[in-house]
Protein backbone atom coordinates (compact mmCIF):
# COMPACT_ATOMS: atom_id res chain seq x y z
CA UNK A 1 0.00 0.00 0.00
CA UNK A 2 1.45 3.35 -1.03
CA UNK A 3 1.56 6.33 1.34
CA UNK A 4 -1.16 8.03 -0.73
CA UNK A 5 -3.45 4.99 -0.37
CA UNK A 6 -2.89 5.07 3.39
CA UNK A 7 -4.03 8.71 3.49
CA UNK A 8 -7.10 7.89 1.41
CA UNK A 9 -8.11 4.79 3.38
CA UNK A 10 -9.91 6.62 6.19
CA UNK A 11 -11.83 8.85 3.78
CA UNK A 12 -12.80 6.17 1.29
CA UNK A 13 -16.49 5.94 2.15
CA UNK A 14 -16.84 9.74 1.94
CA UNK A 15 -15.07 9.76 -1.44
CA UNK A 16 -17.37 7.03 -2.75
CA UNK A 17 -20.45 8.88 -1.47
CA UNK A 18 -19.26 12.14 -3.05
CA UNK A 19 -18.83 10.44 -6.44
CA UNK A 20 -22.25 8.80 -6.24
CA UNK A 21 -23.81 12.04 -5.04
CA UNK A 22 -22.44 13.85 -8.12
CA UNK A 23 -22.94 11.11 -10.70
CA UNK A 24 -26.19 9.45 -9.65
CA UNK A 25 -25.31 5.80 -10.04
CA UNK A 26 -22.00 4.05 -10.74
CA UNK A 27 -20.58 0.53 -10.77
CA UNK A 28 -17.43 -0.61 -8.95
CA UNK A 29 -14.95 -0.45 -11.81
CA UNK A 30 -16.34 2.92 -12.93
CA UNK A 31 -15.68 4.36 -9.43
CA UNK A 32 -12.02 3.25 -9.47
CA UNK A 33 -11.55 4.80 -12.90
CA UNK A 34 -13.32 8.03 -12.00
CA UNK A 35 -11.02 8.58 -9.00
CA UNK A 36 -7.97 7.97 -11.19
CA UNK A 37 -9.30 10.34 -13.82
CA UNK A 38 -10.18 13.16 -11.38
CA UNK A 39 -6.82 12.97 -9.56
CA UNK A 40 -4.80 12.42 -12.74
CA UNK A 41 -3.67 8.98 -11.52
CA UNK A 42 -2.36 10.34 -8.18
CA UNK A 43 -4.98 8.45 -6.17
CA UNK A 44 -5.93 4.89 -6.99
CA UNK A 45 -8.59 3.07 -5.03
CA UNK A 46 -7.73 -0.58 -4.75
CA UNK A 47 -10.48 -3.07 -5.50
CA UNK A 48 -9.74 -4.80 -2.21
CA UNK A 49 -10.65 -1.59 -0.37
CA UNK A 50 -13.51 -0.43 -2.58
CA UNK A 51 -15.80 -3.46 -2.63
CA UNK A 52 -15.95 -4.01 1.15
CA UNK A 53 -16.87 -0.30 1.52
CA UNK A 54 -19.60 -0.55 -1.13
CA UNK A 55 -21.05 -3.69 0.44
CA UNK A 56 -20.91 -2.19 3.92
CA UNK A 57 -22.72 0.96 2.79
CA UNK A 58 -25.30 -1.23 1.06
CA UNK A 59 -25.84 -3.26 4.24
CA UNK A 60 -26.31 -0.01 6.17
CA UNK A 61 -29.03 1.00 3.69
CA UNK A 62 -27.03 4.06 2.58
CA UNK A 63 -26.59 2.63 -0.92
CA UNK A 64 -28.98 0.56 -2.95
CA UNK A 65 -28.03 -1.67 -5.89
CA UNK A 66 -29.54 -1.62 -9.37
CA UNK A 67 -28.67 -4.50 -11.66
CA UNK A 68 -28.69 -4.28 -15.42
CA UNK A 69 -27.69 -6.64 -18.19
CA UNK A 70 -24.78 -5.20 -20.20
CA UNK A 71 -23.23 -7.17 -23.10
CA UNK A 72 -24.85 -10.35 -21.78
CA UNK A 73 -23.52 -10.05 -18.23
CA UNK A 74 -24.96 -8.61 -15.02
CA UNK A 75 -23.72 -5.17 -13.98
CA UNK A 76 -24.40 -3.91 -10.46
CA UNK A 77 -24.80 -0.16 -10.11
CA UNK A 78 -24.90 1.59 -6.75
CA UNK A 79 -26.88 4.69 -5.91
CA UNK A 80 -27.60 6.61 -2.73
CA UNK A 81 -30.89 5.79 -0.99
CA UNK A 82 -33.22 8.58 0.21
CA UNK A 83 -32.13 7.65 3.76
CA UNK A 84 -28.48 7.71 2.70
CA UNK A 85 -28.76 11.18 1.21
CA UNK A 86 -28.48 12.92 4.58
CA UNK A 87 -25.60 10.64 5.62
CA UNK A 88 -23.81 11.38 2.33
CA UNK A 89 -24.20 15.14 2.80
CA UNK A 90 -22.79 14.89 6.34
CA UNK A 91 -19.80 12.77 5.35
CA UNK A 92 -18.99 14.97 2.34
CA UNK A 93 -19.16 18.09 4.56
CA UNK A 94 -16.86 16.38 7.10
CA UNK A 95 -14.39 15.44 4.40
CA UNK A 96 -14.43 18.98 3.04
CA UNK A 97 -13.82 20.44 6.50
CA UNK A 98 -11.00 17.95 7.04
CA UNK A 99 -9.36 18.90 3.72
CA UNK A 100 -9.66 22.61 4.56
CA UNK A 101 -8.12 22.10 8.00
CA UNK A 102 -5.34 20.04 6.50
CA UNK A 103 -4.72 22.84 4.07
CA UNK A 104 -4.46 25.32 6.96
CA UNK A 105 -1.83 23.14 8.63
CA UNK A 106 0.11 22.74 5.41
CA UNK A 107 -0.20 26.43 4.46
CA UNK A 108 -0.34 28.42 7.73
CA UNK A 109 -0.26 31.69 5.78
CA UNK A 110 -3.75 30.97 4.40
CA UNK A 111 -5.17 31.02 7.95
CA UNK A 112 -3.55 34.27 8.99
CA UNK A 113 -4.46 36.12 5.76
Amino acid at each position, binding site marked *: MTQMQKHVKGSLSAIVLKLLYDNGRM*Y*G*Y*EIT*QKVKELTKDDITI*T*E*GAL*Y*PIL*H*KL*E*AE*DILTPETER*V*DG*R*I*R*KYYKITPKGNAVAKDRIAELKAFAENLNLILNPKLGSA
Partner: protein
Amino acid sequence: MKLTPEQIETIEYYILSWDIKNKDFYEEILDHFISAVEERMVKENESFDYAFPEVTHVFADHIIKPAWFLETFSGLKALELEFQKAAHKMAFKVLMKDALRHLKNGFGLIWLLLALALYVTFFFFSTYVAQAACGLINIVFLMFSPISLKGLKRGYRHLRIKVFRTEASLSLEELKQVKLIPTKFNSFGHVLFLLGFVLSIVNFVNVFDFEISKETIQVGILAYLFLIIPISWTAYKLESKKA
Protein backbone atom coordinates in the same frame (compact mmCIF):
# COMPACT_ATOMS: atom_id res chain seq x y z
CA MET B 1 -12.62 -4.02 -27.55
CA LYS B 2 -15.10 -6.73 -26.61
CA LEU B 3 -13.71 -9.97 -25.25
CA THR B 4 -14.40 -13.22 -27.09
CA PRO B 5 -16.57 -15.90 -25.38
CA GLU B 6 -13.40 -18.01 -24.91
CA GLN B 7 -11.61 -15.14 -23.15
CA ILE B 8 -14.62 -14.56 -20.88
CA GLU B 9 -14.64 -18.29 -20.13
CA THR B 10 -10.97 -18.08 -19.08
CA ILE B 11 -11.86 -15.29 -16.62
CA GLU B 12 -14.84 -17.26 -15.29
CA TYR B 13 -12.71 -20.35 -14.65
CA TYR B 14 -10.14 -18.16 -12.91
CA ILE B 15 -12.74 -16.62 -10.56
CA LEU B 16 -14.27 -20.02 -9.78
CA SER B 17 -10.80 -21.38 -9.00
CA TRP B 18 -10.87 -19.15 -5.87
CA ASP B 19 -13.70 -21.31 -4.53
CA ILE B 20 -16.20 -18.47 -4.90
CA LYS B 21 -19.70 -19.54 -3.84
CA ASN B 22 -21.84 -16.42 -3.77
CA LYS B 23 -23.48 -15.79 -7.13
CA ASP B 24 -24.06 -12.06 -6.53
CA PHE B 25 -20.41 -11.53 -5.68
CA TYR B 26 -19.31 -13.67 -8.62
CA GLU B 27 -21.34 -11.62 -11.09
CA GLU B 28 -20.07 -8.31 -9.73
CA ILE B 29 -16.42 -9.39 -9.87
CA LEU B 30 -16.83 -10.95 -13.32
CA ASP B 31 -18.15 -7.62 -14.64
CA HIS B 32 -15.21 -5.84 -12.97
CA PHE B 33 -12.67 -8.20 -14.55
CA ILE B 34 -14.19 -7.97 -18.03
CA SER B 35 -14.46 -4.15 -17.88
CA ALA B 36 -10.88 -3.81 -16.60
CA VAL B 37 -9.36 -6.21 -19.14
CA GLU B 38 -11.30 -4.68 -22.05
CA GLU B 39 -10.19 -1.19 -21.06
CA ARG B 40 -6.54 -2.19 -20.70
CA MET B 41 -6.62 -3.85 -24.11
CA VAL B 42 -7.92 -0.63 -25.68
CA LYS B 43 -6.07 2.05 -23.69
CA GLU B 44 -2.72 0.31 -23.19
CA ASN B 45 -2.92 -1.63 -26.44
CA GLU B 46 -2.22 -4.87 -24.56
CA SER B 47 -3.11 -8.38 -25.64
CA PHE B 48 -5.57 -10.41 -23.53
CA ASP B 49 -2.74 -12.70 -22.41
CA TYR B 50 -0.93 -9.72 -20.90
CA ALA B 51 -3.89 -7.64 -19.67
CA PHE B 52 -5.72 -10.44 -17.83
CA PRO B 53 -2.87 -11.46 -15.45
CA GLU B 54 -2.25 -7.76 -14.75
CA VAL B 55 -5.88 -7.34 -13.64
CA THR B 56 -5.67 -10.41 -11.40
CA HIS B 57 -2.81 -8.75 -9.48
CA VAL B 58 -4.98 -5.91 -8.18
CA PHE B 59 -7.04 -8.34 -6.09
CA ALA B 60 -4.15 -10.50 -4.95
CA ASP B 61 -2.90 -8.40 -2.02
CA HIS B 62 -6.23 -8.36 -0.16
CA ILE B 63 -5.93 -10.44 3.01
CA ILE B 64 -8.29 -11.06 5.92
CA LYS B 65 -8.38 -13.27 8.99
CA PRO B 66 -12.07 -13.60 9.95
CA ALA B 67 -11.32 -14.80 13.50
CA TRP B 68 -8.27 -15.78 15.55
CA PHE B 69 -9.12 -19.48 15.28
CA LEU B 70 -9.66 -19.38 11.51
CA GLU B 71 -7.11 -19.47 8.73
CA THR B 72 -6.09 -16.35 6.78
CA PHE B 73 -7.86 -15.81 3.47
CA SER B 74 -6.48 -13.82 0.57
CA GLY B 75 -7.45 -12.46 -2.85
CA LEU B 76 -10.95 -12.97 -4.19
CA LYS B 77 -11.89 -15.40 -1.40
CA ALA B 78 -11.09 -12.73 1.21
CA LEU B 79 -13.24 -10.22 -0.64
CA GLU B 80 -16.08 -12.73 -0.91
CA LEU B 81 -16.02 -13.40 2.84
CA GLU B 82 -16.34 -9.68 3.52
CA PHE B 83 -19.16 -9.47 0.99
CA GLN B 84 -21.01 -12.33 2.65
CA LYS B 85 -20.69 -10.77 6.08
CA ALA B 86 -22.31 -7.55 4.84
CA ALA B 87 -24.89 -9.43 2.74
CA HIS B 88 -26.01 -11.61 5.66
CA LYS B 89 -26.39 -8.58 7.90
CA MET B 90 -28.51 -6.90 5.25
CA ALA B 91 -30.57 -10.02 4.50
CA PHE B 92 -31.36 -10.45 8.18
CA LYS B 93 -32.58 -6.85 8.44
CA VAL B 94 -34.73 -7.14 5.31
CA LEU B 95 -36.13 -10.48 6.46
CA MET B 96 -37.15 -9.21 9.89
CA LYS B 97 -38.67 -6.04 8.44
CA ASP B 98 -40.66 -8.04 5.91
CA ALA B 99 -41.75 -10.65 8.47
CA LEU B 100 -43.14 -7.85 10.61
CA ARG B 101 -44.93 -6.38 7.60
CA HIS B 102 -46.51 -9.77 6.78
CA LEU B 103 -47.65 -10.17 10.37
CA LYS B 104 -49.52 -6.91 10.11
CA ASN B 105 -51.42 -7.84 6.95
CA GLY B 106 -54.29 -10.33 6.49
CA PHE B 107 -52.08 -13.37 6.07
CA GLY B 108 -50.37 -12.69 9.38
CA LEU B 109 -53.67 -12.43 11.21
CA ILE B 110 -55.05 -15.66 9.73
CA TRP B 111 -51.80 -17.43 10.57
CA LEU B 112 -51.79 -16.20 14.16
CA LEU B 113 -55.41 -17.32 14.66
CA LEU B 114 -54.62 -20.75 13.20
CA ALA B 115 -51.49 -21.04 15.34
CA LEU B 116 -53.44 -20.02 18.43
CA ALA B 117 -56.19 -22.55 17.64
CA LEU B 118 -53.62 -25.34 17.26
CA TYR B 119 -51.87 -24.34 20.45
CA VAL B 120 -55.12 -24.29 22.46
CA THR B 121 -56.19 -27.64 20.93
CA PHE B 122 -52.85 -29.16 21.94
CA PHE B 123 -53.02 -28.18 25.58
CA PHE B 124 -56.74 -28.22 26.33
CA PHE B 125 -58.41 -30.67 23.96
CA SER B 126 -56.77 -33.34 21.87
CA THR B 127 -52.97 -33.56 21.92
CA TYR B 128 -53.02 -36.05 19.07
CA VAL B 129 -55.23 -33.95 16.78
CA ALA B 130 -53.00 -30.90 17.35
CA GLN B 131 -49.81 -32.92 16.86
CA ALA B 132 -51.15 -34.48 13.70
CA ALA B 133 -52.12 -31.02 12.41
CA CYS B 134 -48.65 -29.67 13.23
CA GLY B 135 -47.09 -32.70 11.57
CA LEU B 136 -49.19 -32.12 8.48
CA ILE B 137 -48.16 -28.46 8.35
CA ASN B 138 -44.53 -29.56 8.72
CA ILE B 139 -44.73 -31.99 5.84
CA VAL B 140 -46.54 -29.54 3.57
CA PHE B 141 -44.13 -26.80 4.51
CA LEU B 142 -40.97 -28.86 4.14
CA MET B 143 -42.01 -30.62 0.95
CA PHE B 144 -43.51 -27.74 -0.95
CA SER B 145 -41.49 -24.77 0.21
CA PRO B 146 -39.36 -23.68 -2.74
CA ILE B 147 -36.48 -23.07 -0.32
CA SER B 148 -36.31 -26.72 0.61
CA LEU B 149 -36.98 -27.85 -2.95
CA LYS B 150 -34.06 -25.71 -4.08
CA GLY B 151 -31.95 -27.22 -1.32
CA LEU B 152 -32.92 -30.75 -2.34
CA LYS B 153 -32.16 -30.08 -6.00
CA ARG B 154 -28.79 -28.61 -5.06
CA GLY B 155 -28.04 -31.56 -2.79
CA TYR B 156 -28.96 -33.96 -5.60
CA ARG B 157 -26.67 -32.15 -8.07
CA HIS B 158 -23.79 -32.27 -5.57
CA LEU B 159 -24.34 -35.94 -4.89
CA ARG B 160 -24.49 -36.76 -8.60
CA ILE B 161 -21.18 -35.03 -9.17
CA LYS B 162 -19.51 -36.45 -6.07
CA VAL B 163 -20.51 -39.97 -7.01
CA PHE B 164 -20.17 -39.98 -10.77
CA ARG B 165 -17.86 -37.15 -11.83
CA THR B 166 -15.01 -34.92 -10.72
CA GLU B 167 -15.11 -31.13 -10.88
CA ALA B 168 -12.48 -31.14 -13.60
CA SER B 169 -14.80 -33.04 -15.93
CA LEU B 170 -17.61 -30.47 -15.64
CA SER B 171 -18.43 -27.84 -18.22
CA LEU B 172 -18.34 -24.21 -17.12
CA GLU B 173 -22.14 -24.03 -16.88
CA GLU B 174 -22.29 -27.20 -14.76
CA LEU B 175 -19.50 -25.90 -12.53
CA LYS B 176 -21.37 -22.63 -11.99
CA GLN B 177 -24.59 -24.51 -11.23
CA VAL B 178 -22.86 -26.64 -8.64
CA LYS B 179 -20.70 -23.99 -7.02
CA LEU B 180 -22.69 -20.77 -7.01
CA ILE B 181 -25.45 -20.14 -4.52
CA PRO B 182 -27.82 -17.62 -6.05
CA THR B 183 -29.60 -16.22 -3.03
CA LYS B 184 -28.95 -14.08 -0.05
CA PHE B 185 -31.72 -15.52 2.08
CA ASN B 186 -30.93 -19.20 1.61
CA SER B 187 -28.64 -19.32 4.64
CA PHE B 188 -31.66 -18.43 6.78
CA GLY B 189 -33.74 -20.84 4.75
CA HIS B 190 -31.32 -23.65 5.56
CA VAL B 191 -31.24 -22.89 9.29
CA LEU B 192 -35.03 -22.67 9.48
CA PHE B 193 -35.40 -25.78 7.35
CA LEU B 194 -33.21 -27.67 9.80
CA LEU B 195 -35.13 -26.35 12.81
CA GLY B 196 -38.44 -27.26 11.18
CA PHE B 197 -37.09 -30.71 10.41
CA VAL B 198 -35.98 -31.29 14.01
CA LEU B 199 -39.33 -30.08 15.32
CA SER B 200 -41.26 -32.29 12.94
CA ILE B 201 -39.29 -35.29 14.20
CA VAL B 202 -40.10 -34.25 17.79
CA ASN B 203 -43.76 -34.07 16.76
CA PHE B 204 -43.84 -37.52 15.23
CA VAL B 205 -41.84 -39.12 17.98
CA ASN B 206 -44.41 -37.83 20.42
CA VAL B 207 -47.33 -39.12 18.32
CA PHE B 208 -45.93 -42.57 18.94
CA ASP B 209 -45.84 -41.88 22.69
CA PHE B 210 -42.12 -41.71 23.36
CA GLU B 211 -41.02 -40.02 26.56
CA ILE B 212 -40.46 -36.34 25.85
CA SER B 213 -41.40 -33.76 28.45
CA LYS B 214 -44.44 -31.62 27.83
CA GLU B 215 -42.32 -28.47 28.34
CA THR B 216 -39.99 -29.41 25.47
CA ILE B 217 -42.94 -29.96 23.18
CA GLN B 218 -44.51 -26.70 24.35
CA VAL B 219 -41.39 -24.64 23.59
CA GLY B 220 -40.93 -26.42 20.27
CA ILE B 221 -44.50 -25.86 19.14
CA LEU B 222 -44.50 -22.25 20.30
CA ALA B 223 -41.28 -21.50 18.42
CA TYR B 224 -42.43 -23.39 15.38
CA LEU B 225 -45.88 -21.88 15.08
CA PHE B 226 -45.15 -18.32 16.03
CA LEU B 227 -41.61 -17.81 14.77
CA ILE B 228 -40.23 -20.33 12.36
CA ILE B 229 -43.13 -20.65 9.94
CA PRO B 230 -43.83 -16.91 9.50
CA ILE B 231 -40.12 -16.08 9.13
CA SER B 232 -39.44 -18.97 6.75
CA TRP B 233 -42.48 -17.98 4.74
CA THR B 234 -41.16 -14.44 4.47
CA ALA B 235 -37.74 -15.74 3.40
CA TYR B 236 -39.46 -17.81 0.72
CA LYS B 237 -41.45 -14.79 -0.50
CA LEU B 238 -38.27 -12.69 -0.68
CA GLU B 239 -36.51 -15.48 -2.59
CA SER B 240 -39.34 -15.74 -5.12
CA LYS B 241 -39.38 -11.97 -5.57
CA LYS B 242 -35.64 -12.00 -6.20
CA ALA B 243 -35.86 -14.89 -8.67
